[in-house]
């Protein structure tokens, strides 16, 4: 018997009360991610993709539907799922190292012990020599890597990424995408990425979920069978272009129709 998926979502619904009426945000979303997979969710602005991540993280309740982790209904998800936002959200009063260990400290690990754990990874996160700097002295890419380190240090096997590269310049972004694939692989993380960058979604993912605009529904599920390890050079390949075409057309229709 195959192992149950890491994340399994069935028939998820979410509405918001807007001007006294309840408006649908997400409708009948089906979604799954296997252990170690990297899955992206893509869609036009306002399709509810960030709300979906918030629900998976446990920050917002959903109206109905099933959410399972490892085949078990996951009711209390806060603190069990790693979550990265577009903003680095580093604390200005903590050094890079002390920002990185925030999550460990919250879970009760002593500062000294936590620092040792963080220092083990500081090189892999490209922060060697910067561990005692305050965030304001760092570039955007470095700040984001420090935020990744804070998220990844916790023993959370699922990582939710809400446009984590959205605020970075194009070159830094390329660098970070390749780096992130390595890190997720090395640290055996299962990742869900929300983005509106088609290239990013295809390059990083094993599977891409396209949502319709509001309310968000499953529009298309695209398996990306590019071989790993991947690199940015693949973006110009024919297979990549073919996959991109498959995603672009429905996305363009959405924007046109909206």
């Amino acid at each position, binding site marked *: 018997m195959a192992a149950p998926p890491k994340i399994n979502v069935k028939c998820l619904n979410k509405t918001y009360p807007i001007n006294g009426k309840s408006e649908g945000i997400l409708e009948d979303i089906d979604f799954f991610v296997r252990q170690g997979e990297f899955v992206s969710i893509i869609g036009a602005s306002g399709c509810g993709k960030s709300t979906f991540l*918030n629900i998976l*993280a*446990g*920050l917002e309740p959903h109206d109905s539907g099933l959410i399972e982790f490892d085949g078990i209904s996951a009711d209390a998800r*806060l*603190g*069990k*799922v*790693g*979550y990265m*936002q577009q*903003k680095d*959200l580093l*604390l*200005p*009063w*903590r050094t890079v190292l002390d920002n990185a260990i*925030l*999550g460990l*400290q*919250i*879970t009760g690990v002593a500062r000294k012990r936590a620092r040792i754990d963080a220092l083990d990874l500081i090189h892999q996160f490209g922060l060697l020599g910067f561990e005692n700097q*305050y965030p*304001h*002295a760092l570039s955007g890419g470095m700040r984001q890597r420090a935020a990744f380190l*804070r998220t990844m240090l*916790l023993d959370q096997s699922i990582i939710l990424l809400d446009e984590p590269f959205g605020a970075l310049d194009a070159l830094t972004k390329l660098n970070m995408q390749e780096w992130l694939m390595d890190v997720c692989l090395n640290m055996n993380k299962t990742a869900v990425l929300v983005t509106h960058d088609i290239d990013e979604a295809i390059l990083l993912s094993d599977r891409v979920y396209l949502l319709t605009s509001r309310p968000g529904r499953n529009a298309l599920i695209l398996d990306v069978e590019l071989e790993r390890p991947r690199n940015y050079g693949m973006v110009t390949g024919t297979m990549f272009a073919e996959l991109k075409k498959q995603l672009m057309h429905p996305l363009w229709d959405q924007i046109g129709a909206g």
Partner: protein
Amino acid sequence: MGFKNKMLNSVNWIFPVCILVSLVIVWEVLVRVVNVPSWQLPPPSAILDELIASKDLLLAHTLVTLKEIGVGFSVALVTGLTLAAGIAYSRILERSVYPIIIASQTIPIIAIAPLLLIWVGYGLTPKVIIVALICFYPIAVNTVDGLKSIDPDMISMFRTLGASRFQVFARLQVPNSLPFMFSGIKIGISVSVIAAVIGEWVGGSEGLGYLITYSQPLFLTARVFAAIFLLSVMGVLLFVLGVWIEHLTMPWYFNAKRSNAMEIL
């Protein structure tokens, strides 16, 4: 960068000092040229003479005023921070106590000072209470603002790390409030000297404020000025002390500010 830094710092000092020194010179010259009687407006040199001649008397009264400020300010700090923490932590306190604190500021504290004499007498206590009442407000209100002005995404981030309400408070809200708290402390320090003088004016037999009201009918004008001078020096030194503690407590804050200033330059 180091050079520009030094430039900025020295510019901060040089201009006010120059202006102050030239004002004192103009004052000295004008009083002598126009021949103003010393009981009306003594020249700075006469005030300096008085500072030296009566240094024991002045020092004794200075220490009394300093004590009133020290104790009163400490009381304000402890109660202000405690209440701010309570208000930021508990919605009930926020709804019930916070409006009262804000409304209480419409009561002129100078007007309740005579009442304090009736209730607690003429000693140290009424001055401490007045200083505390006046300093309490900026400290409490600024700290509440600091504790509550948190990016909601920061709170989400803490929650996804599994933080409890108390952990959000202790590790996010409290450090975030420090710059606000120090703003309140600096405002509090600035008004604390005035508060102590008011307390001494209303009733007392010690302190620089008392010395002013005592010397004025005797036309000891140079002594009045000497007391005013000492009060100002005290105010400035206490303020500098506050800024110094602020820098020691939040090096990260001033580093960030400085590097932002450099980018603008």
